[in-house]
């Protein structure tokens, strides 16, 4: 183990935010490397501030470091200035714990949470001194692996990643460690041998173990060996209660996004919003036992010194018995004073605002809701069954409780969206401000508009994304409609959504495009100041690919999809029927509290939704079309220790924003 620190240190005097590269956080381990242990370098392909709070990364860091046969360190994409210094001084990418060269690790494990970070992955592999193409790597090179939500369509990155880990990583990381450890013990000679063996681990996809053939314009994969699965099923841990991680959340020395204690209260979401990949691929719902949540909050706060804790999940107010939990936490914490609690991803209703006011006794500045679309018709199409009354009641309750600034999340470019749906967004925003002005002159409302990018494994996977022009036109409509009103509009760059669309539903051919963009310096594409549409369009043209074929084209029923060999447990006919139901403007209830509609997840994995209490939260009827507000008997299993299971962290940034309070 050779530390590069003495050579790196002088460079840090010359870069922005040098503390990104020093490690030293409370909770950090400095593992000793030895030949017997499988060494993992966990990498998030964006800056430290964006990547460090990733819960999946923190969980794996602890689980691996607790194993006697493994060790884990971390690294992030170095900012442009340090990258320049490293290249100029012939230094490689390094780990933060021991400042060891990345190429000294057995595994480089990337977290793929956003498509626009793909070029950074290539840059990190290259900075590690490892060939970017998997086919060019030799026996001495580390294995390049990837996990995270984007791996549900692994194909665009298939040329660069040796093996993908799909689904929850808690158990899988250990199984992969064992395979690699045994291979190392045998002398680690043939790369092909370990890759083949990894391909037989459930949940692992090894692109090189498949033959690519063409059916018309489509690519189809067939396993090269009998023991390699034709369909790779995601991994799901059955009971979150078995995995109380992170136990020692790292406390960054520099300010990061979500700079607080994060305790995951459940995985999965059954509301079934049709645009939402996170909700679809993390089924079924697995709630953490309420007692464990309390312990994790208490111990986490006293270990980290944070004064801010967030109960994270895709829709935290949906946790069964959330009011009891929150009341307990607020009472327990009130003793040691001044600890603030937040629930990200609030549902849109007055009940939720009640919880929010309970926990946020001070600093009631901003609150965020996500109605997602402007009209009831549109919300039925996307299955976000929030009525205008729900929203206005929530807004009224929020302003009455003292909040002054509401932020509303919307998507544009949704299937069947008409201009009146788009303009409905302006109506909602204006009405919300009016409600607020009944309470305070300072009331304001910001509508934040994202461009819809269809994602694999959702009912909208067949939908042709809006073109850049169409999205820009819709943004223009709203800008005009909200000009000279008291509501503001923020929007996401439609060009960035377009590129996200290329990678989101791309096939293996898109790999060449990613490589070209990277070779021409297109890194940090998530950062608007570095984003370059021209590089992507040029690279598509040079690869002989038509961007519209990938992005704006509607897919046909039965057409081969690039992610057909990956299963999130959802039957493809369930998704197709749900797509048809969307076009017919039919909503579908939350299956946690109402009878099953057979999406496939629970039955195929022999799992069930695990909830902490049989009583749905008040207001939990929202989107079910039923009145469950008073609770009652529902067809669910109560979580018992040692029963069931889990998945990876939701889209971090968005969750963070929606919890701002």
């Amino acid at each position, binding site marked *: 183990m050779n530390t590069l*620190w003495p050579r790196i*240190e002088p460079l*840090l*005097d*010359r870069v922005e935010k*040098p*503390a990104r*590269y*020093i490690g*030293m*956080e*409370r909770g950090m381990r400095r593992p000793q490397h030895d030949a017997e242990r499988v060494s993992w370098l966990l990498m998030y392909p964006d800056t430290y501030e964006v990547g460090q709070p990733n819960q999946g990364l923190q969980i794996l860091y602890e689980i691996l470091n607790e194993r006697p046969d493994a060790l884990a360190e971390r690294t992030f994409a170095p900012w442009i200035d340090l990258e320049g210094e490293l290249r100029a001084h012939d230094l490689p990418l390094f780990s933060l714990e021991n400042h060891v060269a990345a190429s000294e690790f057995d595994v480089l494990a990337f977290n793929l949470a956003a498509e626009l970070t793909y070029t950074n992955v290539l840059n990190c592999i290259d900075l590690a001194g490892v060939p970017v193409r998997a086919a060019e790597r030799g026996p001495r090179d580390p294995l390049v692996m990837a996990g995270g939500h984007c791996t549900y369509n692994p194909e665009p990155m298939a040329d660069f990643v040796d093996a993908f880990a799909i689904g929850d990583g808690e158990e899988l990381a250990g199984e992969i460690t064992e395979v690699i450890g045994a291979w190392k013990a045998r002398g680690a000679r043939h790369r092909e041998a370990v890759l083949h063996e990894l391909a037989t681990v459930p949940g692992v996809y090894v692109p090189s173990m498949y033959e690519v053939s063409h059916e018309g314009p489509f690519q189809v994969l067939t396993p090269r060996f009998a023991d390699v699965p034709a369909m790779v099923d995601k991994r799901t841990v059955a009971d979150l209660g078995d995995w109380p991680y992170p136990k020692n959340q790292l*406390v960054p*020395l*520099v*300010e990061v996004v979500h700079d607080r204690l994060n305790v995951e209260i459940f995985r999965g979401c059954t509301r079934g919003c049709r645009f939402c990949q996170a909700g679809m691929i993390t089924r079924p719902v697995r709630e953490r036992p309420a007692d464990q949540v309390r312990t994790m909050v208490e111990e986490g*706060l*006293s*270990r*980290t*010194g*944070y*004064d801010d804790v967030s109960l994270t999940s895709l829709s935290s107010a949906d946790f069964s018995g959330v009011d009891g939990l929150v009341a307990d936490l607020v009472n327990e914490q009130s003793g*040691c*004073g*001044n600890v603030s609690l937040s629930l990200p991803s609030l549902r849109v209703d007055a009940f939720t605002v009640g919880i929010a006011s309970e926990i946020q006794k*001070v*600093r009631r500045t901003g609150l965020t809701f996500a109605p997602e679309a402007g009209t009831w018709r549109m919300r039925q199409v996307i299955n976000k069954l929030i009525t205008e009354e729900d929203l206005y009641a929530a807004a009224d309750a929020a302003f009455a409780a003292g909040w002054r600034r509401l932020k509303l999340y919307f998507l544009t470019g949704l299937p069947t969206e008409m201009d009146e749906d788009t303009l409905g967004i302006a109506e909602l925003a204006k009405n919300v401000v009016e409600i607020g002005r009944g309470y305070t002159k300072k009331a304001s409302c910001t509508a934040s508009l994202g461009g819809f990018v269809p994602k694999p494994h959702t009912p909208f996977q067949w939908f042709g994304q809006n073109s850049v022009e169409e999205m820009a036109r819709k943004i223009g409509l709203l800008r005009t409609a909200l000009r000279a009103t008291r509501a503001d509009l923020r929007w996401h760059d439609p060009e960035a959504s377009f590129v996200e669309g290329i990678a989101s539903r791309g096939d293996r051919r898109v790999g060449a495009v990613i490589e070209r963009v990277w070779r021409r310096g297109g890194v940090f594409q998530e950062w608007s100041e570095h984003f370059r549409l021209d590089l992507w369009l040029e690279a598509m043209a040079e690869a002989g690919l038509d961007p519209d074929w990938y992005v704006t084209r509607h897919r046909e029923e039965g057409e081969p999809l690039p992610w057909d060999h990956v299963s999130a447990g959802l039957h493809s006919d369930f998704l197709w029927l749900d797509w048809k139901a969307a076009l017919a403007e039919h909503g579908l209830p939350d299956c946690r509290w109402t009878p099953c509609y057979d999406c496939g997840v629970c039955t195929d994995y022999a799992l069930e939704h695990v909830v902490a209490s049989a009583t749905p939260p008040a207001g939990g009827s929202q989107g079910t079309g039923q009145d469950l507000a008073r609770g009652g008997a529902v067809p669910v299993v109560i979580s018992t220790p040692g029963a069931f299971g889990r998945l990876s962290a939701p889209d971090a940034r968005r969750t963070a924003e929606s919890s701002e309070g």
Partner: protein
Amino acid sequence: MKGDRGFPVRLRFTKRGRVRFISHRDVARALERAFRVEGLPLAFTEGFAPRPKVSFGLALPTGYESDAEYLDAGLTEEVDLDDLITGVSASLPEGMGVADAVFLEPRAASLQRAVTSVSYVVQAVWSGDDARDPSDVEAWIQNTLRADALPVVVQRKGTEVIEDLRPAILHLSIGSTGVPDETPEGPVREGPIPERHVTEGVTLQLEVSTQPKSIRPTEVLGTLDAGPERPFRAGNGLRVATIVRTAQWIERDGSRLCPLEADTRQRAEVGAR
């Protein structure tokens, strides 16, 4: 105010080694978290967003080390200062530690207002082919001290302004090599990591005043060679390797005190009002 009737303390803490790369704000956050981990009975401000009553002295620029950082904190009850020193130090990042603590007069002037000057030890090394005679440096020091004015262009809040550095330079000399193990206030108790202290090159002792405003040592060093080579910049010439703040001073009524000597009270007096 309520907190004023509590138990204000003043701490001296250190920032050595690689932790020098964190910013002043990061230092403040790390200390506040360490206080919470230790369960220190911090007093809070009143109002909508109560903040712990902790106030820091002069900001130390990112990248500088220090043996002499100070902060004042309001406590709601008396604590054993030795326990505080050990406990908080254990919860701070490597390289940071509480070295000393005293109880403070309730109405002590804030560090920002009270401190009149600070001392630094600057270690510079020759780099590139540009190694020169140290007597050049000696000559520069003499010129600097003889000058009536030393106008330089400096960055203030993002804009360039011309400032006369001379009045702020209280002391400038070539010192012995190496950073002293002992500061004027006694030995550093917790974890200084002198991992990058070089012995080749030049060691300078510098004291600059902080009133009415403070100047940075690098601004003084920048005048060593105003020519195209700019010796204290990256590249050839004399390059700053380390800057360590070694002391802060309160000049008051003709005496020179360290912040732990000014406005402090004995433990026995605590609470006796």
